[in-house]
């Protein structure tokens, strides 16, 4: 096997395994690195957060040097397709791919439309076709439940022998909308890659389109040499991108993903990957081209940046956003629905939506207080988010970030209705924003000190009132700062230190 191909396969296996581990919740502080070097998250960081510009530039520069190695080794969705393609090479009767047409016009118009929507504040179309988040949803919504089910069978088995070293895994509950979507994408991409190779990457993928534009001009390229090539067509047959036209001995560099399959297939050294100028090209031409290319990016990015600052139309929204999301505007414009936060949330309070944010923000997660509540000492979602939809926030900051405010509806309350002790909301409240104020017959009824409430939803989640909760959180469209909890500042009435036992 060609060394380059071997190298590509090793790196892509490492990256793929890391991604799977990441979505299974292993070492987020380490593996999240791989989510942050994805092209579309990097692009969102550049245009909407104005951070991590170097990641984006490095990815572009990498492509400029070596072609679309991003697509063949770094993109998890690409590697997922390669797995299906591997099965085709191994088991299919018809092992060869056909040379594909480059649907240039369609491709660039389509991707432009995605980006136009994106820069006008609608991220839905981008996240539906963006490769990384599709991979995330497939793992999180389809693969993970199956793996967890198998794990839990083992848990049951081992428990019989008093072995508790494997833990029961809990996935979030079933959400039909996001499951169906992820499952459909999984099936479609499986079939598509099996029969048409990297068709998706060269027609629909926004990352592929951006990198395709650059790889046209890249320094290292695959080239067919006129002398050695016997036009046998083997290279074109193994090319999953379908970019080799062996009759004319040309390669469509927009489509080539630098997988190096052709190199290891060719027996005649008729195809090579190196740094060579075209025969009729002088060094001056080459430098000129490079400068032009860089200037083109500068020109292209300026108007895009202006578009990025356009505002979303705000409307009143009952949805609660996780701490770090800062505002509905920030969250909605940056979240590509990769569900990495959903995968890592220890209480599973972050759940995928289908269309709750409106069609504009398909599948973006929200805080689901029917399901669970946000732990006081936790900021995991903010540390893993690759696009800054949930910005990094320290635990100390999080404890004072008011993502919503609890409201009390007395007529639903158990204490009011049945005149019996309940107080679950007060019990779970981490800041004691919910206190029990004296009510009749020595009972206590909830009362809310809104200034110290952080909207974690514990009270709403545990409230046993049926069918409607007596206490619920109204989301803050823009997160606020809460006041410090007033623990021991109150005058103590009971529980004094004693010297002798009073009995």
């Amino acid at each position, binding site marked *: 096997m060609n060394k380059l191909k071997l190298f590509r396969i090793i790196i892509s296996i490492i990256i793929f395994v890391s991604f799977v581990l990441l979505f299974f919740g292993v070492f987020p502080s380490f593996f999240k690195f791989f989510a942050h070097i994805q092209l579309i998250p990097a692009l969102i960081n550049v245009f909407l957060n104005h951070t991590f510009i170097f990641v984006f530039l490095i990815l572009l520069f990498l492509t400029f040097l070596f072609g679309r190695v991003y697509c063949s080794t770094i993109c998890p969705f690409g590697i997922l397709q390669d797995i299906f393609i591997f099965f085709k090479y191994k088991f299919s009767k018809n092992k060869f791919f056909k040379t594909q047409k480059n649907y240039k016009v369609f491709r660039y118009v389509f991707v432009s439309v995605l980006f136009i929507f994106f820069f006008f504040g609608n991220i839905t179309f981008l996240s539906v076709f963006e490769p990384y988040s599709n991979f995330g949803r497939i793992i999180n919504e389809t693969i993970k439940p199956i793996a967890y089910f198998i794990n839990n069978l083992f848990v049951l088995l081992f428990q019989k022998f008093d072995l508790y070293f494997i833990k029961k895994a809990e996935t979030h509950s079933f959400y039909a909308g996001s499951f169906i979507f992820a499952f459909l994408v999984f099936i479609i991409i499986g079939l598509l890659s099996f029969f048409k190779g990297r068709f998706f990457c060269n027609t629909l993928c926004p990352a592929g389109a951006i990198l395709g534009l650059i790889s046209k001009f890249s320094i290292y390229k695959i080239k067919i040499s006129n002398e050695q090539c016997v036009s046998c067509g083997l290279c074109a047959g193994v090319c999953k991108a379908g970019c080799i036209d062996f009759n004319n001995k040309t390669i469509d560099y927009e489509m080539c993903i630098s997988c190096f399959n052709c190199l290891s297939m060719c027996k005649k050294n008729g195809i090579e990957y190196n740094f060579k100028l075209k025969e009729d090209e002088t060094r001056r031409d080459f430098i000129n081209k490079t400068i032009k290319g860089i200037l083109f990016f500068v020109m292209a990015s300026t108007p895009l940046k202006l578009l990025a600052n356009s505002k979303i139309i705000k409307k009143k929204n009952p949805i609660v956003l996780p701490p770090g999301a800062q505002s509905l505007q920030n969250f909605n414009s940056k979240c590509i629905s990769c569900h990495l936060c959903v995968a890592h949330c220890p209480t599973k309070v972050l759940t995928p939506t289908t269309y709750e944010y409106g069609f504009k923000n398909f599948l973006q997660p929200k805080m689901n207080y029917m399901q669970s509540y946000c732990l006081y000492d936790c900021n995991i979602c903010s540390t893993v988010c690759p696009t800054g939809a949930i910005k990094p926030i320290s635990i100390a900051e999080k404890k004072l970030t008011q993502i919503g405010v609890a409201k009390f509806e007395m007529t639903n309350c158990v204490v009011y209705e049945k005149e019996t002790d309940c107080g679950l909301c007060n019990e779970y409240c981490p800041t004691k924003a919910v206190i029990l104020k004296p009510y009749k017959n020595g009972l*206590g009824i909830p009362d809310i000190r809104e200034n110290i409430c952080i909207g974690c939803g514990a009270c709403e989640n545990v409230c046993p009132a049926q069918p409607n909760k007596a206490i619920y959180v109204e989301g803050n469209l823009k997160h606020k700062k809460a006041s410090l909890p007033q623990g021991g500042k109150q005058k103590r009435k009971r529980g004094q230190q004693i010297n002798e036992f009073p009995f």
Partner: protein
Amino acid sequence: MNRRKFIKETLKYGISAGIALTGIDKIFAASQSLIKDVETPGLIAIKGATPEKMFEKGIMAMGGMTRFIKKGQTVLVKPNIGWDVTPELAANTNPKLVGVIIKHCIDAGAKKVYVFDHTCDNWQKTYKNSGIEYAVKQAGGIMVPGNSVSNYQKVNITGGKILKSTSVHELLISSDVFINVPVLKSHGSAQLTIAMKNLMGVVWDRRFWHITDLHQCIADFTAFRKPDLTIVDAYNVMTEHGPRGTDGSDLVKMQSQIISTDIVAADAAAAKIFGVQPESIRHIKIAAEKGLGKINLDEINIKKIYL
């Protein structure tokens, strides 16, 4: 077969099978320890040292752990592991106390010592952050998850006024010895949470308790399986804003501990330490009226130890 006959039959066969299995000499040893029961105090109150040290002294005065555990028995130790907070905040039982209890159980010949709680917050984080998981493993106990409904079995509560049946963790049913290790705290709805309230952590559906009559349910459930031993951790006591607490500013260092075979008396004594009359806590009062234990501490043999 009616219920009474069923219980009689099972008991008969259970006892004869037990004799066959354990041998007469062990039964004899057990009856000896019963005789000792009369002489040893029913409640020990200790004050003035670390939780581990107080326990060491207290259990010695109680006649040692061997009084409660026979060789080869399985033990369930049930601390309060409700909240995802660190040990300094005293919202959970002191992990070092749990550790030393497990050591004593193992030294007494326990085959296995299980520890679990049906936590309020996320169980994995709570087990870890409370320090109890670590302490249990260090001491040689087995930390068991309490978060899975499949481990809970439906049982009937005899004599329950409101709580007639509920689902309890299978270890509560299968373990030979049951040791309850609550922490003394203020509580929003139950006023105080001590030993009886701590038993809520072995049932699955607590919501029902809250929407019907919390105090009655707590007292009803106590009758299901009274712990063989109750150890109340009153070292750092959360005097306000319980059971979760806030930043630790409500804690009072009382340096006390109660060890008792009578769960109601343990609650009554702990309430008095807290500065509350036991009769004013409804579930303690109901439990005493049901005859589950003594609320009047004069009726019980108490030994006080000041260290």
